[in-house]
């Protein structure tokens, strides 16, 4: 079967792979932006308690049902997703900055390089979730604790990628020429390596997002993260555990599913951007 045969089928009939990829990516991005934006429009009243309509199963009025205090689960979920995305964004950005610094540091010299790879090894040697918990506890918990816990543990893979990329760039002729001209190592790192690495950073940040969000939710679910007053998905789900045996399935089902969809969306954006940048992967 030729590649063109597989593309012109299905939902996106009539589009080629390029158009399809761009369209899909834009659509998902819009969805995510809408989720974050909706947070600014949720007024406090809809989050407030309403004991007359508590523990309602999903209906037209309350698509995700209501909880034991009569709060609308759809709005709570929306708020939780917005919060998750924002925390994910902050943590991923910090993580990316860390990997930029460490990646460039490893390009400076042999000692620096082995230090960076040793640091990566150390961070990978403690179970990831446990390390986040530990950092979160160390920073006194709360939003800062989670964000830092997630941020300080997700830089390892991107740093490795950056390191490998730089190693490869170093073998290129123009880097040698630059060095022969007596340019300093930092000058070379910033002027020559950075332009090549920026796409990697953008992609790396986006691909880090889903991990960051999932870890934030997990840590919060366990009780180390955001405080119970925040509308975080982790909090919603951990609260729902108390009502499971009562059969209030919607308390757990929809918020978790929404989280899954958000994580999947980020994954898809990352994958598609990767495909656009590295066309070899599109052949599969």
């Amino acid at each position, binding site marked *: 079967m030729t590649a063109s045969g597989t593309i012109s089928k299905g939902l996106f009939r009539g589009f080629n792979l390029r158009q399809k990829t761009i369209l899909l990516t834009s659509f998902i991005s819009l969805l995510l932006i809408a989720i974050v934006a909706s947070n600014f429009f949720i007024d406090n009243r809809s989050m407030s308690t309403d004991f007359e309509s508590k523990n309602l199963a999903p209906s037209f009025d309350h698509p995700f049902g209501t909880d034991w205090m009569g709060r609308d689960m759809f709005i709570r979920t929306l708020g939780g997703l917005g919060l998750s995305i924002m925390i994910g964004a902050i943590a991923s950005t910090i993580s990316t900055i860390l990997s930029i610094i460490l990646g460039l540091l490893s390009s400076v010299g042999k000692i620096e390089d082995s230090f960076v790879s040793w640091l990566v090894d150390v961070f990978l*040697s403690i179970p*990831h979730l446990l390390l986040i918990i530990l950092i979160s*506890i*160390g920073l006194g918990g709360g939003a800062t604790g989670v964000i830092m816990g997630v941020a300080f543990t997700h830089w390892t893979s991107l740093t490795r990628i950056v390191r490998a990329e730089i190693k490869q760039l170093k073998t290129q002729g123009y880097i040698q020429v630059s060095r022969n001209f007596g340019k300093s190592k930092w000058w070379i790192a910033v002027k020559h390596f950075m332009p090549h690495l920026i796409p990697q950073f953008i992609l790396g940040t986006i691909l880090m997002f889903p991990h960051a969000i999932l870890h934030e939710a997990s840590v919060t679910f*366990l009780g180390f993260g955001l405080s119970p007053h925040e509308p975080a998905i982790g909090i919603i*789900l951990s609260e729902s555990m108390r009502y499971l045996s009562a059969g209030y399935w919607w308390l757990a089902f929809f918020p978790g599913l929404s989280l899954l969809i958000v994580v999947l969306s980020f994954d898809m954006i990352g994958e598609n951007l990767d495909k656009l940048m590295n066309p070899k992967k599109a052949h*599969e």
Partner: protein
Amino acid sequence: MRLREFKPSVTIFFWKLYSADVLRKYDLKFNGRAKMKHRKFGIFIGKKIIRLLILLMVVCIASFWLIEQSPIDPVRAYIGEMSIQPEQRALLEEYWGVNTPSHEKFFNWAKNLLNGDFGVSLIYRMPVTHVIKERFTASLILMASSWLLSGVVGFILGIIAGMNSGSLIDKAIKTYCYVLIATPTFWLALILLLVFSVYLGWFPVGLSVPIGLTAEEVTLFDRIQHLILPTLTLSVLGVAQIAMFTREKLIEVLSSDYVLFAKARGEKGLDLVLRHGVRNVALPAITLQFLGFSELFGGAVLVEQVFSYPGIGQATVAAGLRSDVPLLLGIVLVSTVFVFLGNLIADIIYEFIDPRIKQQEATQ
């Protein structure tokens, strides 16, 4: 007499010379290589042990420092919600060393560690080593069974997807994996709990053994019944990574020159995949599975929390939430060793079992 003695000895002499020559040849070829390998392996393990010791030291210092930073009050953690007299409080404060300088506390702790004393757990009121041993054993059963299950199922799914790449079944498996990778572990655990325990009533809602029974009364069946859902959750998620990896690796192998040649020689279909694909994908896949100990541990923490499975994960959460510092630090150290072992096995497979690596060394 002399002559008679001499003659056979000459034959023996020559035979020995000959055989020695033959043996030496073999020795060089086989034993020589084996001896070299043994020696290399010794050096390798030695290096790894030194690495582990340095790593543990760093982890000790770092995690102790982190906990010191936090506003944890060990006395409050110990007494819980009880109210106590100021004198008693002062006594406890001295016992827990609240007012001793950090570095002194660290050295005390480290000195005890070297003697095998991890301290006493605040919440379980028994030695940390004891708690960890009991809890880790329970978790090990959970982790080992789901590790095996996810490894086998993931590998098979990956092979099926890889050999049919581009087909409907491949897309189905790929989609399944993508969705699973994005699924929050604890949410999946909740859903399974909801479906199988709450609605269908097939499995108990919590605890690894029924409440109110002594250890002897717990049957194997009880244990297994309480193990199934956590194992299922943990392995369903573990499947995704290994399946995707196997799939990609198999596609890579199937587009290799040697598979092309095998096809040119008339091999095809499942036979071809089994003969060349599985052979070349198996070792990397097993290696990856061993590298996944860290994620496995994290998954166990979440799953145990949802199913109230009394393993090391649940103990971790309890220790963290209730500020049981000695237990938490003990768990950090033990889990570090656990992850290290996984990586070590992966390294051994990579360096000593896969013949291709020897090839690269030979050409260097």
